[in-house]
């Protein structure tokens, strides 16, 4: 059976160390961190090791990705932050860094400058031997451009984002050959104003939304992917749905969802 993993940070008012304990107890073997410059990376890594959890990726910090595409010094700073994340990942032997290429509902125009900056990020990953993955988010066109420009980056297939932000665009059909990482979570699709909204990005546990997991996993399996089924779930995105769940209960529930995914995967 594939390895089962989940995003791991402080949720529901509990520390990440506490969360690691619950995730490991629930049965997860792998995690990824929402990395940022302020975190004590060494402590995070040590805690993970103590709990028997492999830290498989760092999610690059949520910089202002729009500025990367624009003539703005903030774009240069954002580029350097992501490069730094890559160097830290290399230092701690974390194999993957997952980055966005855009993170906004107001799409900036694509630009040569943006490509140059992403080029620097790509080169940094190649230099340090880190597998850089770009993830699908609110728009698909910037991601398509980056993938058509750079050969080495892999695709992080974010199933939830595809469902609520870009309905009708099956990203695996276009980028499946480059699949390198998964972000698995559920939601109820795009709202009935037919306009992408972050409110739709519920990050629920699989099978608690209306994503067609049979279709999704079939596409993933067809690509030959043999990595981790990595959940990117977070009760904080949908507190109304998760009510007064405790962190321990949440990880048990998440693992049950992940296990159901894995069992379905095996049957396909």
């Amino acid at each position, binding site marked *: 059976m594939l390895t089962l993993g989940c995003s791991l940070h402080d949720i529901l008012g509990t520390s990440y160390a506490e969360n690691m304990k619950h995730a490991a107890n629930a049965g997860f073997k792998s995690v990824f961190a929402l990395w940022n410059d302020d975190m004590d990376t060494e402590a995070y890594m040590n805690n993970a090791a103590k709990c028997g959890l492999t830290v498989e990726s760092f999610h690059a910090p949520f910089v202002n990705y729009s500025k990367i595409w624009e003539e703005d010094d903030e774009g240069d700073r954002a580029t350097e932050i992501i490069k730094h994340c890559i160097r830290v990942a290399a230092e701690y032997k974390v194999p993957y860094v997952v980055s966005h290429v855009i993170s906004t509902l107001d*799409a900036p*125009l*694509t*630009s*040569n400058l*943006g*490509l140059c900056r992403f080029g620097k990020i790509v080169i940094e990953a190649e230099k340090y031997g880190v597998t850089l993955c770009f993830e699908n988010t609110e*728009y*698909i*066109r910037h*991601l*398509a*451009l*980056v*993938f*058509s*420009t750079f050969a080495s980056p892999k695709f992080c297939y974010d199933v939830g984002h595809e469902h609520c*932000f*870009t*309905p*009708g*665009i*099956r990203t695996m*059909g*276009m980028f499946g050959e480059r699949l390198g990482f998964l972000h698995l979570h559920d939601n109820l699709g*795009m709202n*009935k*104003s*037919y*306009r*992408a909204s972050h409110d739709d990005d519920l990050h629920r546990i699989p099978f608690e939304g209306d994503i067609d997991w049979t279709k999704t996993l079939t596409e993933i399996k067809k690509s030959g992917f043999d990595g981790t089924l990595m959940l990117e779930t977070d009760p904080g995105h949908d507190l109304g749905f998760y009510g007064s769940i405790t962190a321990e209960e949440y990880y048990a529930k998440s693992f049950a969802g992940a296990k159901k995914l894995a069992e379905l995967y095996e049957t396909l």
Partner: protein
Amino acid sequence: MKNLLGACPIDEKLIPLYDCLRLIKKTGFETTMFDWHTPDEAKETVEFCKKIGLEVDNFHAPFGGLNVMWYEGEAGENYTKRIEEYVTTAGKLDIPIVVVHCTAGGIPEEPHGSPIGIERFARIIALGKKCGVKIAFENLEYPEMLGLIMDVFKNEDIGFCYDTGHEALCTPGMRFIPLYGDRLCCTHIHDNYGASYSKVPIVHGDCHMLPFDGCLDFGRIMSDIRSTGYTGALTLESGIRQSLGYHYDLSPEAYFKRGFDALVKLSEM
């Protein structure tokens, strides 16, 4: 089964429409597509095509300023009615397909989905069903909007018009056949130099050149098309004079001959 080869008419300032259609037929093309101003004009042109033995593959609905369809108000309503007129006219004249854009550039601003927009496209699709006309949506600048249409109307018999030039220029890195190839019902075949990212990728460089005169990978394009089992027409959507000041220094006769040879080469790939 062989794909019919088609071409759209070129600028009427260079050659009057009927002369152009005669030339298209004489060159060897079997089918054409066009737009029109009035239903009477459409009827007369279709009848002329029939007379000279040229099939009409589809009508291309108006698209300039189309983004108003996504906003409340009279302008959007009027635009919808114009497209509906295209659909009813196509039905009366037994034209099987009307090609519709779902966006038209970033004018006045990048369009976003809206209930009124979906309602209007729903009306057009329903009318198409009633008239026996397939509504085919074409890939353009905002793939997310085409995705929205394809998702909302996934249970309707809508078609996909694959535009090779737009795919390369407007959405580099995207491949639309893996997304919508199962709905492929017509094609717009043209070439360009790809995207230019000095500032605005969308309008700059939509040259509508003949295949093999730009830098598109038609080997990959034809492989994608063939993978669908598509038996419809391969239709040039190119012109002697297009954007970026690009133009062919050719007579209409020489231009269509060049286009026909290119399409034959394409059809044999």
